[in-house]
């Protein structure tokens, strides 16, 4: 993609939305309809569309003809303009990703503001005014809730609760520190006659300071994520931005009220402080209540899945509005609502609803934020500014100083209480990442007009936003990478890690109890216990308390399954059916569709199917043609599994030793009823010679195109091998269903088989399952299972450490019996 070719679409995009902008603005500016009949404007003109009034009946009895084309703009004006704006802003977002490297170095907010600036310039040049839609009520009622809900819903809960003290400390105390510090300093600056701002009194300064202390590190969070910064820093930055909004809005309202008072005395200050706490805690309480009610409602929505997401949105929005009604902190309300709701709701609703909820929340939040930044850009050019060098520069200076100072001081105080203290680099990252954003702008823009110097404040706010977003936003990425801030090593944890860390947490909680101390471990334990005993029973429909260990295990299995499919999905036509079967089971499981009876065994069955499907995938692809030879298909399956795994590995073209083997190990197993010596001896060729005739037979029947087993270059073999795989599906599908039915009726069998199986032989389980589902000679099949594995069993990764013949099958066959 040459740069030139990517510039062209950018230009087209730019031009098209400039035109769209003019369209909407022109329409807005028109104040009197021209009484002409014209076609609806198909192409934009410089003067905007011309629209007609409905045909006026003329005084003379002249015949007026039915107008062929009419235009009735005022009717659709408002929704039309909103849609155009949103579309415009979204085009801008598309445009950024045309040249994708831009978004790495320049945060999206910068780009949005730039586009806004361009559009504003265009509008200014044609003397249009931006639509006066950003009023206080529109902002607070429509644009702010999605942004806050978005942040709150996607906050990772566990790290958040571990760091909740720090987060609240930084957001509440930090914001207070910033506002008051900057406010007082600015007030001091105002006293300097040279700047000509002496008419700004203390309250107004404090108000302004509180506005600009609202940190909005959206851009910085994106950078943090990209750089994989350590979790603690990320979560504190995230949490701080969220709660900081709440504090800012509260302070804003407080100071707004106070600013209107002619005189402020001690009682007002005291009341102010009291109100602050009341408002915050009240908001939290509200949010909790609504969160629980929402969770409770979703317990009953099994039959009305289509409107499940609606409940989430409505409840959170209701929490917000009610809090606004009572003038308590609506942001706290919606945040707490989202946090409490999320955990329970995601267990009650179906998988699709869950996805819908997340997507819609993300979408609304993004739209809202985009619009605000875009608007910022437009307003920058089109409003009259009142520029005051001194005031503005001092504002920026003080804001930076106080933020840095605040972070350092606060960190010093709270570090002793943290198990992972923040080091200097973290602190720098946190303070430098304090960009100002959407909320700051909106709050400034919606200042009441009673403030004399409103224009100055708006100008100063815009200045500081642009300064922080552009300069800090662009430079933070190289700086962070240069400074080598502590990174995280997070990836989807292994089961091991989950189990062991849980154990350690229990140990620590226990020892804490022993010492008679409490800390967040024991609190967490207590809360989880309470949660499991009471809350979950009430709020969750089908209360099967699922430990995080089990959840992680399922997730990992599913992931493995998907990976397997990924590697062969290109060639396997039946793969979709596999996945859909998979997902259906998975979603069934996760949505806890309650069955009438057999809950435990159904769960078992589903779990089996989930975990065994993975193995089955290989089986499926392998043993397709075994539909008629069921009693022996296990062996064929063995071969095919092994072949498949080698294909998988060779597809990945990785080395066959070491780590990968640990994973693919799982799918190896010993053929039924055979010891390692027979049929799978070290000599590759013996595979043909030894073993059962049945084996031979199966090999032949299995592979429609017999392939020579010797000496083929690796990749051609694999590719060739993939063809037989294609045919292998439908039988296994059938087998699966049979198996599924059977399994639900035979939990005992499963338990015996699974208790026998090792991780290295999941296939055995399948085989054991296979036999019951297939034939009626179940008991023997099982006994056979039980006996065969222990004696002869030391499966090794076929090529661990050994060169081996290039033929994957041969390679795999090189199990060394009794080697370990």
């Amino acid at each position, binding site marked *: 993609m040459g740069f030139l070719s990517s510039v062209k679409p950018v230009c087209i995009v730019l031009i098209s939305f400039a035109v769209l902008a003019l369209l909407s603005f022109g329409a807005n500016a028109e104040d009197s309809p021209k009484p002409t009949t014209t076609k609806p404007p198909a192409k934009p003109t410089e003067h905007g569309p011309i629209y007609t009034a409905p045909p006026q009946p003329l005084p003379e009895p002249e015949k007026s003809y039915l107008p062929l084309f009419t235009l009735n703009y005022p009717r659709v004006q408002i929704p039309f303009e909103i849609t155009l704006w949103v579309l415009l802003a979204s085009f801008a977002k598309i445009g950024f990703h045309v040249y994708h490297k831009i978004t790495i170095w320049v945060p999206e907010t910068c780009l949005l503001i730039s586009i806004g600036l361009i559009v504003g310039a265009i509008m200014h040049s044609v003397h249009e005014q931006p639509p006066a839609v950003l009023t206080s009520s529109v902002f607070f009622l429509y644009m702010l809730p999605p942004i806050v809900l978005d942040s709150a819903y996607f906050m990772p809960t566990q790290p958040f609760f571990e760091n909740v003290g720090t987060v609240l400390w930084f957001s509440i105390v930090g914001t207070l520190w910033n506002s008051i510090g900057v406010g007082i300093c600015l007030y001091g600056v105002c006293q300097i006659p040279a700047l000509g701002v002496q008419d700004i009194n203390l309250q107004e300064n404090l108000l302004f300071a509180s506005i600009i202390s609202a940190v909005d590190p959206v851009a910085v969070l994106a950078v943090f994520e990209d750089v994989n910064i350590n979790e603690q820093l990320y979560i504190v930055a995230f949490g701080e931005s969220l709660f900081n909004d709440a504090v800012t809005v509260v302070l804003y309202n407080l100071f707004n009220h106070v600013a209107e008072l002619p005189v402020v005395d001690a009682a007002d200050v005291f009341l102010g402080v009291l109100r602050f706490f009341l408002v915050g805690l009240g908001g939290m309480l509200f949010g909790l209540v609504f969160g629980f009610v929402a969770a409770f409602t979703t317990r009953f929505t099994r039959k009305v899945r289509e409107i499940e997401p609606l409940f989430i949105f409505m409840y959170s929005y209701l929490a917000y509005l009610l809090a606004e009604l009572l003038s308590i902190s609506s942001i706290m309300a919606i945040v707490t609502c989202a946090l409490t709701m999320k955990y329970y709701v995601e267990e009650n609703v179906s998988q699709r609803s869950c996805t819908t909820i997340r997507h819609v929340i993300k979408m609304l939040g993004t739209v809202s934020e985009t619009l605000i930044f875009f608007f910022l850009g437009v307003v920058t050019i089109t409003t009259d500014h009142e520029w005051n060098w001194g005031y503005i520069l001092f504002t920026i200076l003080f804001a930076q100083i106080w933020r840095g100072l605040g972070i350092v001081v606060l960190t010093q105080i709270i570090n002793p209480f943290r198990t992972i203290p923040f080091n200097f680099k973290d602190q720098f990252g946190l303070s430098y990442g304090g960009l100002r954003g959407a909320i700051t702008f909106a709050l400034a823009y919606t200042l009441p007009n009673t403030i004399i110097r409103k224009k100055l404040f708006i100008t100063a706010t815009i200045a500081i936003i642009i300064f922080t977003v552009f300069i800090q936003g662009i430079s933070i990425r190289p700086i962070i990478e240069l400074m080598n801030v502590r990174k995280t090593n997070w990836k989807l944890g292994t089961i091991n890690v989950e189990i062991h860390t849980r154990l350690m947490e229990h140990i620590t909680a226990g020892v804490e109890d022993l010492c008679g101390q409490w800390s967040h471990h024991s609190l967490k334990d207590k809360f989880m216990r309470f949660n499991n005993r009471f809350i979950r029973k009430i709020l969750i429909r089908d209360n099967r308390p699922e430990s995080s260990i089990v959840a992680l295990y399922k997730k990992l299995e599913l992931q493995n399954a998907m990976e397997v499919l990924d590697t062969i999905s290109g060639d396997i036509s039946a793969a979709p059916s596999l996945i859909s079967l998979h997902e259906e089971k998975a979603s069934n499981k996760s949505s806890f569709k309650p069955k009438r009876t057999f809950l435990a065994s159904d769960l078992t069955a589903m779990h089996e199917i989930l975990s065994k499907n993975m193995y089955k995938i290989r089986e499926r692809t392998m043993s397709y043609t075994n539909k008629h030879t069921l009693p022996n298909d296990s062996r064929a399956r063995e071969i095919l599994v092994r072949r498949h795994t080698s294909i998988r590995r060779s597809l990945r073209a990785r080395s066959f030793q070491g780590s990968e083997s640990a994973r693919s190990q799982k799918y190896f197993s010993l053929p039924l009823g055979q010891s390692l010596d027979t049929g799978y001896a070290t000599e590759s060729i013996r595979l043909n010679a030894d073993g059962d005739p049945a084996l031979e037979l199966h090999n032949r029947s299995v592979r429609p195109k017999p392939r020579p087993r010797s000496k083929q270059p690796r990749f051609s073999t694999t590719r060739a091998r993939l063809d037989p795989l294609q045919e292998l599906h439908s039988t296994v599908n059938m087998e699966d269903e049979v198996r599924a039915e059977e399994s639900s009726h035979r939990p005992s069998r499963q338990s015996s088989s699974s208790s026998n199986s090792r*991780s290295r032989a999941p296939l055995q389980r399948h085989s054991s399952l296979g036999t019951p589902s297939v034939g009626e000679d179940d008991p023997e099949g099982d006994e056979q299972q039980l006996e065969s594995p222990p004696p002869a069993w030391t499966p090794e990764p076929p090529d661990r450490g050994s060169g081996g013949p290039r033929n994957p099958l041969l390679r795999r066959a090189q199990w060394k019996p009794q080697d370990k």
Partner: protein
Amino acid sequence: MGSTSSTLSKIPNADELIQETGFTSAHLARLFERFEALDKDKKGYLSPQDFEAIKELALNPICDRIIGAFFSSGQEMLDFSSFVRILAHFRPIDNNRTKEPNSPDPINSRINKLKFAFQLYDQDKDGKISRNELLQVLRAMLEKQVTEEQLESIADRTIQEADLDRDDAISFEEFRKSLEKVNIDHKMSIRFLR
């Protein structure tokens, strides 16, 4: 609470303990008070019943293993120095400690913390966590939440993930390796013991 020095004088070989465990004298005094508070019959040592009497501890799913870790060699009496030595495992790691090459690791080093956790799994002390031992711990931690099936699957998966030498058990090295990316200090430290 009595003054530190008076409490310290009651503790036999207090200085040695301070040296060995790295606790400060204030901490040691506090722990001694706790020890005495737990020792309801004033025996001068603790028995498993004293531990079980702590009700929050009794609610812990692995409380018997924790108690077992304290009374490691089957003895029934836990004196103060052993008590403190085991608790020293939970001191947060001090990163500023200079490493003398020949001195042994302090009790609260990462390796020792891991060893402590390992020994909670490994009840028969053969140096490996066998599948059964893992199953027992899992059963204790997951209680009635999962079926036996799932437990087994999970145990299998765990061993499969960690077991590098394919002996169907997790040795200490494998244990340590699987946790190399985890911040053990964070998980196994009690802050007030710093």
